[in-house]
């Protein structure tokens, strides 16, 4: 059957920020498919100019309301490397626990409240409160656990207070850490239950080969710093971030596109999984096995499953980190430093993938140049070309306009895009 239709989803719901899906079909054939970001830019790279280095993480954390800890730590890492500051080991561990809290919170928000309604066929998670109360409750309890970790380690769930150059300004109390450890023990069964629920969902069958990028250090699953690697065998130093991004603009998007060796690349949970499978906690590997998820997986819808697998890793690893902190006197948390001129990149694995901040300082410790490349920016081209391939595959399978529209929405949501972050 030859059909003509246009899919024009203005401000796609259940994602962070403002992006449009535009698909045009003529005579039953795909004429055009676009991922068009229409978000307003805020110009962070300009705002950091002239700002004191110590104030920068408090500015850049505001790039994103979901992954503010990652932005704060990317700026801190770039500025510490630029000004040759070495944070104490205790601070390094506290920061890692903060990242775990943020990633758990972000993954739970996405999986249970943004993505799950697609699979259940509801407009939001609110109707799921009636139909699947135990799943929604598990989602809320895991999100709360993530937030409690962030609050204990940084003072607040969104826009961290105590992450500063040189370390952290305040250590979490041991009493609070012990309480959170208990909370983890209590909530692990909920994660297992939620995993059973996600196993009952049908993940769309779609594959488009791509190049997955992430951090890698060969010692632990990546969060803060490391080499930049891809599944195509590229490996570079953290400071070589420009060679990993090659940003360019397109006329239909206020968010830039990037690429490495192919026309597009992908960052995020699935990319981390594909590059670092061996470094996952055994409990997370067991979860992956239950879904048949193995590296290298090229189905973008499996990013949802990779996030769930990472939740298992985060919870298990957080328990071990808390034990280390409970054995620590938590006194050596901040290094003294003097401002100096320098330049460096700070790379971290934000919930949605590898995030780069590059900062240059002058002798007085003021920033003279800044650059931020966001995970979702590094996914834009992949989303764009995936939409094209998915729409073509769906039309070849004889799917209706409504089915194509729903699949395309689900595809974009699988990337868990953080759009205002990507435009910044």
């Amino acid at each position, binding site marked *: 059957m030859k059909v003509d239709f246009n899919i024009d989803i203005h*401000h796609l*719901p*259940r*994602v*962070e*920020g*403002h992006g449009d899906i535009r698909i045009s079909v003529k005579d039953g054939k795909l004429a055009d498919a676009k991922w068009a970001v229409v978000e*307003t*830019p*805020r*110009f962070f*790279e*300009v*705002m950091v*100019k002239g*700002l*004191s280095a110590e*104030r920068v993480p*408090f*500015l850049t954390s*505001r*790039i*994103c*309301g*979901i992954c*503010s800890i990652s932005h704060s730590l990317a700026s801190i890492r770039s500025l510490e490397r630029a000004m040759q500051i070495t944070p104490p080991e205790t601070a390094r561990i506290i920061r890692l626990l903060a990242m775990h809290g943020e990633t758990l919170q972000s993954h739970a*928000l996405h999986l249970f*409240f*943004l993505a799950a*309604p697609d699979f259940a066929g509801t*407009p*939001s*998670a*609110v109707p799921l*409160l009636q139909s699947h109360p135990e799943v929604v409750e598990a989602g*809320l*309890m895991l*999100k*709360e656990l993530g*937030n409690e970790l962030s609050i204990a380690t*940084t*003072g*607040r*769930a*969104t*826009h961290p*207070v*105590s992450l*500063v150059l040189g370390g952290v*300004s*305040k250590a979490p109390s041991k009493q609070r850490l012990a309480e959170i450890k208990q909370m983890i023990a209590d909530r692990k069964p909920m994660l297992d239950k939620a995993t059973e629920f996600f196993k009952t969902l049908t993940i769309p069958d779609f594959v488009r080969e791509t190049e997955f990028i992430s951090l890698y250090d060969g010692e632990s699953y990546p969060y803060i710093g490391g080499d930049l690697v891809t599944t195509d065998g590229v490996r570079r130093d953290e400071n070589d971030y420009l060679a990993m991004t090659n940003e360019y*603009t397109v*006329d239909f998007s*206020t968010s830039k596109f990037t690429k490495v060796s192919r026309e597009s690349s992908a960052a995020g949970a699935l990319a981390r999984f594909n590059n670092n499978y061996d470094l996952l906690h055994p409990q997370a590997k067991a979860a992956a096995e239950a879904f048949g998820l193995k590296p290298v997986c090229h189905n973008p819808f499996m990013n949802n499953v990779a996030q769930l697998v990472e939740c298992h890793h985060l919870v298990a690893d957080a328990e071990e980190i808390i034990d280390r902190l409970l054995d620590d006197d938590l006194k050596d948390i901040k290094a003294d430093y003097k401002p100096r001129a320098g330049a460096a990149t700070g790379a971290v694995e934000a919930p949605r993938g590898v995030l780069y901040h590059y900062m240059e300082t002058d002798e007085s410790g003021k920033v003279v140049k800044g650059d931020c490349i966001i995970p979702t920016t590094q996914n834009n081209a992949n989303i764009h070309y995936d939409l094209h391939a998915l729409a073509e595959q769906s039309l070849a399978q004889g799917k209706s306009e409504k089915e194509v529209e729903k699949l395309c929405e689900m595809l974009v949501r699988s990337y868990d895009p953080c759009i*205002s*972050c990507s435009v910044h």
Partner: protein
Amino acid sequence: MNHLGFDIEKLKIGSFDFTCCEGCQLQLANKESTLPEFLALLDIRNFREISSERLDDYDIALVEGSITRQDEVERLKAIRAQAKVLVAYGTCACFGGMNAQKNKFPKEECIRTVYGDKQIDTMQESHKISDFVTVDYSIPGCPVNKEEVERIVVSIATRSPIALPKYPVCVECKQRLNTCLFDLGEVCLGPISRAGCDAVCPSGKTVCLGCRGPADGINYDSFVQLVKDKELSTDEMNEKLAFYNGFTEYLNHEG
């Protein structure tokens, strides 16, 4: 919904975002332990970030973000036309927020630095929403404090008076028995900034940057004198005062 023996109608609410990080809307889904009770007060008609259902019969509009492009002005005015009560939600909506740190750079420089030769539509300044529409209530904060949001939403639902604390952050900071950051040699905006955040930043041993704007009846000159008496940097003070755009009237006085 029953409150003290009275039936309360659910609030038909819409939540909208403009130029921002969406972190304030995210707070609506935080504080998970009281979330079911909080949601029981609300009939969510329009909230793109969490629901695909978009209905335009809301009475209360929470508006997050600052205004930086003309199409946002039109969208904001349409929301104002529909809403019986419009709330400026978060520091960006209330004051222009940290987005306004770009205001001191010409917009051509902003566009060239980030996009090179690509054409980008943006205003010279990041505006607070009251530059374009009448605002009924303001809930400042970067991000907003969910406890305060809960209190205000309950007040709207029960038709009780709504007020923000008039006193400065120092009051809450002292209640938490923190060491004063001025005594540790730092310029903190706690003495002149509006409380209601439970002094979350100084309690984490970092300075208040005034995200909630000025408290009522502040003695700004005396604050500047305090910074000078302590021999602290007025450049640093000015950088902090400009951080969230909440103190523009005072900064202009200072020249």
